[in-house]
């Protein structure tokens, strides 16, 4: 069992705990709660509560679509979740590298409720097991490899002697190369594997050999005078490769192999610093110069050199769009640098050669789970333009688009509510979204008063506008084409989104019905076509080339691709909370980013 806790003797408490666990489910949704909403799942109604992070979760809920990157990230999160824990997979079967799911279900509210019921039973029975297996996410796995102290290029999986000089190989810990973003950030340093292991090192289940490896490394290397690089401040940190110190982040300095290590705490670097600090007369030998340490370090906006830390946010961060990877370099509580990535982007290259126009439409729709009909419409329009056909029911199509826009804005509001701690808005927006997505024309008209009332309520939320109007000012001449607002800040964009809901409602009312989006009969048409659609996030453009009724090339340009460039200027020198709100205010969908 991967999710259970080990026990030595069964006792009465275990039964109680198991039942309590089943009644207090904290769920971490993969890819994210938006997908659950878009798929029509009401998690609250099913008795699940959102976890604020992997440590807080005991259920990992998997929903389609799941890419490799997403599954890798999910396996890291699963490794961090404290036992007892369980995996629920709705509508997905293959979830490797995660272990087998404890419960499989179908992707529907009924399926969810059924899964939750069996989950309660599962926890009641299996919270404690006497055959517990440890789960190590492959993305986090570190292994011990052996290298020659003199020839770092010699790496072997087994202990032995160096083919070049015959010395005994010394063990060291390494991380495996994966596409894991958290890994990437630390891969360069030797600390990477240590730090990464913190993810999965559970008190009870941590493989003991990891710790051994570390100790052995320290003894072996410093004792044998083998190190090539060492930290000027932490002489016990020795590495074969240049990099930065796992303790203080300073650059490791080269050390001659014959210098005597470990003799005294600062012996290893004394000859290094003496030469450069000796210009200051009267310094004690071996004195650690802070001037040297801070020289050339980046300065904050207030002119102080501070230590910068790089923190990954995402892909399952509660305040950000699910699947959106954000790595912030923080200077204190201020953002100094932001890099973005997507865990679930699309790909518009036609790898398997030309495909049928109809299939292409389905394909694009499938790649955009948060706005399927919008992109279906986009594909249809582009193909029809290429085939020089015109469709008749544009009005009805626009109504469909408007419906999806409303749903998208409501999902955005849910996210904003979660980020700002506005539970009321979070709950209500989620409820309305669930009602909107499945609704037909009559139902939407019926929902109109409730929606307008909700919009009024959001606008009247005390301090909400105040909270938002200090953040998220876009730089001049930025290529923003999301909902246009009068004020250039997050508050303005909130109002614009709320107005967008009202306008979309009016549009649906005017159309009188909601149409299905069907690709017109194009036969064996050929040619180039271009189309654009106003999505909830901005304008999406598609350019397709048809030949013989088949799409031979396509180029998609989505609003989120353009808007991710705004993340850096929006967050620059902002306080962390403000930066996250600013990012939320431009509503990026990681699904609309390229992989």
């Amino acid at each position, binding site marked *: 069992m991967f999710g259970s806790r080990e026990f030595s003797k069964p006792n009465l408490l275990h039964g109680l705990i198991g039942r309590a666990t089943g009644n207090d489910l904290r769920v971490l949704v993969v890819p994210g709660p938006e997908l659950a909403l878009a798929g029509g799942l009401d998690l609250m109604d099913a008795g699940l509560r959102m976890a604020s992070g992997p440590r807080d979760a005991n259920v990992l809920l998997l929903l389609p679509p799941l890419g490799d990157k997403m599954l890798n990230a999910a396996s890291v999160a699963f490794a961090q979740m404290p036992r007892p824990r369980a995996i629920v997979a709705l509508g997905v079967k293959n979830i490797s590298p995660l272990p087998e799911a404890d419960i499989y279900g179908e992707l529907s509210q009924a399926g969810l409720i059924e899964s939750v019921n069996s989950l309660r039973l599962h926890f009641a029975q299996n919270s404690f097991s006497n055959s517990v297996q440890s789960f190590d996410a492959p993305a986090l796995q570190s292994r011990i490899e052996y290298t020659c102290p003199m020839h770092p290029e010699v790496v072997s999986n087994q202990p032995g002697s160096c083919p070049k000089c015959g010395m005994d190989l010394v063990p060291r810990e390494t991380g495996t190369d994966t596409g894991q973003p958290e890994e990437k950030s630390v891969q360069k340093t030797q600390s990477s594997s240590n730090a990464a292991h913190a993810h999965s090192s559970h008190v009870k289940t941590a493989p003991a050999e990891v710790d051994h490896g570390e100790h052995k490394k320290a003894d072996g290397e410093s004792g044998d005078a083998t190190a090539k690089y060492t930290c000027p401040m932490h002489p016990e940190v020795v590495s074969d490769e240049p990099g930065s110190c796992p303790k203080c982040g300073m650059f490791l300095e080269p050390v001659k192999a014959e210098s005597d290590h470990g003799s005294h705490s600062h012996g290893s670097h004394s000859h290094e610093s003496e030469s450069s600090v000796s210009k*200051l*007369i*009267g*310094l*004690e030998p071996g*004195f650690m*110069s*802070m*001037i040297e*340490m*801070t*020289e050339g*370090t980046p300065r904050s906006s207030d*002119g*102080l*050199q501070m230590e910068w830390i790089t923190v990954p946010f995402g892909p399952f961060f509660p305040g950000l769009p699910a699947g959106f990877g954000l790595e912030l370099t923080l200077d204190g509580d201020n953002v100094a640098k932001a890099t973005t990535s997507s865990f679930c982007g699309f790909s518009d290259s036609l790898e398997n050669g030309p495909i049928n126009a109809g299939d292409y439409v389905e394909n694009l729709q499938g790649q955009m789970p948060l706005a399927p009909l919008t992109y279906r419409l986009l594909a249809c329009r582009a193909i029809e333009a290429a085939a020089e056909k015109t469709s008749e029911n544009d009005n009805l199509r626009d109504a469909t688009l408007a419906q999806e826009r409303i749903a998208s804005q409501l999902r955005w509001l849910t996210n904003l509510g979660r980020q700002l701690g506005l539970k009321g808005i979070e709950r209500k927006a989620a409820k309305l979204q669930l009602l909107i997505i499945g609704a037909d024309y009559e139902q939407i008209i019926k929902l109109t008063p409730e929606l307008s009332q909700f919009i009024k309520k959001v606008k009247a939320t005390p301090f909400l506008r105040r909270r938002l109007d200090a953040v998220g000012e876009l730089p001049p001449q930025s290529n923003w084409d999301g909902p246009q607002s009068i004020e250039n800040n997050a508050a303005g964009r909130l109002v614009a989104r709320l107005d967008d809901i009202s306008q979309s409602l009016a549009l649906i009312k005017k159309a009188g019905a909601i149409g299905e989006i069907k690709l017109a009969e194009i036969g064996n048409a050929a040619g180039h076509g271009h189309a654009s659609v106003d999505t909830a996030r901005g304008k999406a453009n598609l350019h397709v080339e048809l030949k013989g009724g088949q799409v031979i090339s396509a180029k998609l340009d989505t609003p989120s691709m353009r808007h991710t460039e705004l993340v850096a200027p929006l967050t620059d020198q902002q306080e962390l909370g403000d930066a996250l709100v600013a990012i939320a205010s431009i509503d990026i969908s990681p699904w609309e980013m390229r992989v």
Partner: protein
Amino acid sequence: MTLELVVTLIIAAAMFGTGIYGALSQTNLVMIMMGIELILAAALLNLVAFWRYLHPDAIEAQMFVLIVMTVMAVEMAVGFAVAITRFRSRGSVEMEEAQELKG
């Protein structure tokens, strides 16, 4: 019996010694300030002990303690201001490296 007084005074003396050691041996300005805080704490201890065991009727002694506490706070404020300024200009709050402050 003056045991209480002597015990308190010896403890104050030990804190004073530790503070002196810290203030002299540390090279970092903030650590030096910590040494001074210890010295001032020893002074506080003496003041309270003298008030309690020798002159409990002289409430001015307590007032004096308040003044010393103020001095502690002022020392912190000024010390940190100096530290920030030095750190901004030199990138260090190491007193070993503050050669220009040496006579």
